[in-house]
C-alpha cells in the first residue's frame, strides 16, 4: 500500500507539471514554468524511493540515474543553438525507448497478466519503439547525416503498410497468447515501422514530426503508467500526449498544411522529390559594396533571417548591420517567419542569443503588409519561407504555406552560399526576378563586408 504522503507528493508533482506547461505558454512565465516542472520531476523521483515499494538493485538504479543525468546535462549544455531541434528529437527518442523497455521488463515480471495490462504493454512497446527509431531518423535528417529530402523507395508504400499490418497482428496475437518471443518480435517490427514512417517526410516538415513523436512518447509513458498502475505516469504522459498533439496542430497550421499532408504527402505524390541541383539560369549578382549602397540609402529595410544565417553564426553581424542602418535613420525590422530556422520559434531563440531586441522581431502577419513600403528586403540564408511557389505553384511541396511577401519590396537582396535550393529542395523563382540582387558567399563573410561598406558611405 502506498503511504498517503507519497500519494500527496505525487499529486503535487502532477500539479507542478500542469503549471509548468501553463507557464511555458507565455513568454513572461516560461522560465518559471521550466523551474516548476523540474522541481515536480525531482519530487516525484525522490519520493519513489520512499513509496513503500521494496527496491532491489539500488546501486544500479542510482548509478544509472547518475550516468543518465550526466549525459543529458552535458549534451544539453554543449549543444549549439542551431542544433537544438535534433537534440530535442534525441531526448524524445530515448524517452520513448525507456517507456518501451519499462513495459517489457514489467510484462516479464507479471505471471498472469490481465488483458488490460497486456493491451497497455502492447501499446507502450509499439508507440515507444516507433518514437525511438523515428526520432533517431529525424536526428539523422536534421544533422544532415542522411538526405533531408523525402526518401521514397519504389513500393515503399506497400512495405510500410505491410509492416504496419504485421505490427497490429503481432500486437493482437500477443494479447491473445502472451509469449516472450512475440514481445521481441513486436519490438523489432515497431522499430522498423518507426524508420519507415519518418523516412518519406521532407526536411522542412521534420519539426512537425518531432512534435508528433513527442506526443507519441507522452502517450507511451501514460500507457506505461497503466501497466505499472502508477497515477503520476498516467497524468504526466497524458498531459504531454494531449499538449503535444495540440502543438503539432498549431505547427502544422503555421506551415499552412494539414498534418496528414505532412506525414503522407510523399506517398500520395503531392510532395515532389525536388531538383536539388544548382540551376544555371542567369541571375543578377552584386558586390558587397553594391548591397551596402542599396541599404545605406534606403529609408526602410526589412531583414529576413533564415537558418543559413545561424549556420554561419552571423546573427551578431546582422545585428551590427541593423544597428548601423538604424544610426543612419533607416527604419529597420526583422521579419520572422513562424517556421524560420528548423523548428517553429527557432529563429527567435537564435536571434535572442545574439541580443537582438525583442521588439524589432516582427511576426509574419504583422510584417507582411509593410513590404509594400519597404525599399530593400535583405534575405539572409532563407529560401523556402520567401518562395512564391508556396502561392503560385500547386505542385510545389510547400504549396499553401504562408510566406513572407518579400517580392512586394522595392528591391530584394539575397545573401546565399550558392544556387542550391533550400531545405525543402525546391527552386525559388524570386531569385531570377529582375529586382533581385544576389550576393554569394558565406553569410558572415558577406555581412561583414556589407557592414564595412555601409561604414564607409
Amino acid at each position, binding site marked *: 500500500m502506498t503511504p498517503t504522503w507519497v500519494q500527496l507528493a505525487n499529486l503535487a508533482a502532477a500539479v507542478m507539471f500542469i503549471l509548468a*506547461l501553463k507557464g*511555458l505558454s507565455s*513568454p513572461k512565465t516560461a522560465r518559471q514554468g521550466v523551474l516548476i516542472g523540474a522541481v515536480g520531476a525531482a519530487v516525484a523521483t525522490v519520493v519513489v524511493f520512499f513509496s513503500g515499494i521494496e527496491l532491489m538493485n539500488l546501486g544500479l538504479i542510482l548509478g544509472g540515474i547518475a550516468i543518465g543525468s550526466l549525459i543529458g546535462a552535458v549534451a544539453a549544455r554543449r549543444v549549439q543553438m542551431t542544433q537544438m531541434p535534433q537534440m530535442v528529437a534525441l*531526448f524524445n527518442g530515448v524517452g520513448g525507448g525507456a517507456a518501451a*523497455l519499462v513495459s517489457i521488463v514489467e510484462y516479464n515480471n507479471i505471471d498472469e497478466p490481465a*488483458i488490460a495490462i497486456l493491451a497497455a504493454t502492447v501499446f507502450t512497446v509499439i508507440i515507444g519503439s516507433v518514437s525511438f527509431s523515428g526520432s533517431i531518423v529525424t536526428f539523422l535528417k536534421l544533422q544532415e547525416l542522411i538526405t533531408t529530402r523525402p526518401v521514397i523507395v519504389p513500393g515503399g508504400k506497400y512495405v510500410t503498410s505491410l509492416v504496419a499490418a504485421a505490427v497490429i497482428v503481432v500486437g493482437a496475437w500477443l494479447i491473445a497468447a502472451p509469449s516472450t518471443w512475440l514481445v521481441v518480435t513486436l519490438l523489432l517490427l515497431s522499430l522498423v515501422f518507426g524508420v519507415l514512417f519518418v523516412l518519406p517526410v521532407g526536411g522542412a516538415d521534420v519539426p512537425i514530426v518531432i512534435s508528433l513523436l*513527442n506526443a507519441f512518447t507522452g502517450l507511451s509513458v501514460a500507457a506505461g503508467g497503466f501497466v*505499472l498502475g502508477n497515477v503520476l505516469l498516467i497524468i504526466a504522459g497524458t498531459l504531454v500526449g494531449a499538449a503535444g*498533439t495540440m502543438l503539432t496542430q498549431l505547427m502544422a497550421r503555421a506551415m499552412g498544411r494539414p498534418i496528414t499532408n505532412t506525414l503522407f504527402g510523399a506517398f500520395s505524390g503531392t510532395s515532389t522529390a525536388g531538383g536539388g541541383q544548382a540551376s544555371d539560369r542567369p541571375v543578377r549578382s552584386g558586390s558587397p559594396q553594391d548591397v551596402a549602397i542599396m541599404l545605406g540609402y534606403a529609408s526602410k529595410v526589412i531583414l529576413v533571417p533564415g537558418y543559413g544565417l545561424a549556420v554561419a553564426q552571423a546573427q551578431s553581424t546582422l545585428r551590427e548591420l541593423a544597428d548601423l542602418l538604424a544610426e543612419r535613420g533607416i527604419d529597420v525590422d526583422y521579419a520572422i517567419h513562424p517556421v524560420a530556422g528548423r523548428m517553429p520559434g527557432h529563429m527567435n531563440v537564435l536571434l535572442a542569443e545574439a541580443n537582438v531586441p525583442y521588439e524589432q522581431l516582427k511576426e509574419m502577419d504583422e510584417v507582411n503588409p509593410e513590404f509594400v513600403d519597404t525599399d530593400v528586403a535583405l534575405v539572409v540564408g532563407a529560401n523556402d519561407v520567401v518562395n512564391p511557389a508556396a502561392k503560385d505553384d500547386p505542385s510545389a511541396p510547400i504549396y499553401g504555406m504562408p510566406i513572407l511577401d518579400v517580392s512586394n519590396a522595392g528591391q530584394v537582396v539575397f545573401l546565399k552560399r550558392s544556387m542550391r535550393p533550400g531545405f525543402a529542395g525546391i527552386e525559388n523563382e524570386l531569385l531570377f526576378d529582375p529586382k533581385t540582387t544576389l550576393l554569394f558567399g558565406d553569410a558572415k563573410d558577406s555581412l561583414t563586408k556589407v557592414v564595412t561598406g555601409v561604414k564607409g558611405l
Partner: protein
Amino acid sequence: MSLSMLAALPMAEEAASDNSGMALLTIFVLSVFVGFEVISKVSAVLHTPLMSGANAIHGIILVGAIIVAGEAEGALELTLSTLAVVLAAINLVGGFVVTDRMLEMFKPKVSKPVASAEAGEETK
C-alpha cells in the same frame, strides 16, 4: 482504447493494487482535457521551448524505470531496466536543461503581448 480493455481494468490488481481501472481511466480522460486546455493558445515564438519542455516532462518515465529496475532479477531484466533508467534520466535532465538554456535567452528583453494567438485562431 477498446471497451473490452476498460472492462478488464479492474481485474488488473497485480500491478494496480491501489487504483481501480475506472479511477485510472478517469484520471486519463481528465488529463487529456487539461493537456489540450493548458496550451490552446501559444505564441509561435514559444513553440520550440514548449515542445522541449513537454519533452522533458515525459522523462518522468524515470519513475517507472526505477520501479521495474527495483524488482528486476536475472541478467536480461537487469540490463534492460538499467538501460531504461539511463535513457529516462537523459530525457528528464537533458530536457529540462536544454529548455532552460533556450529560455535563458529570452529573459532580459521586454516581451511583447502574444500576437500570434489571434493569428492562429482566425484560420480555424
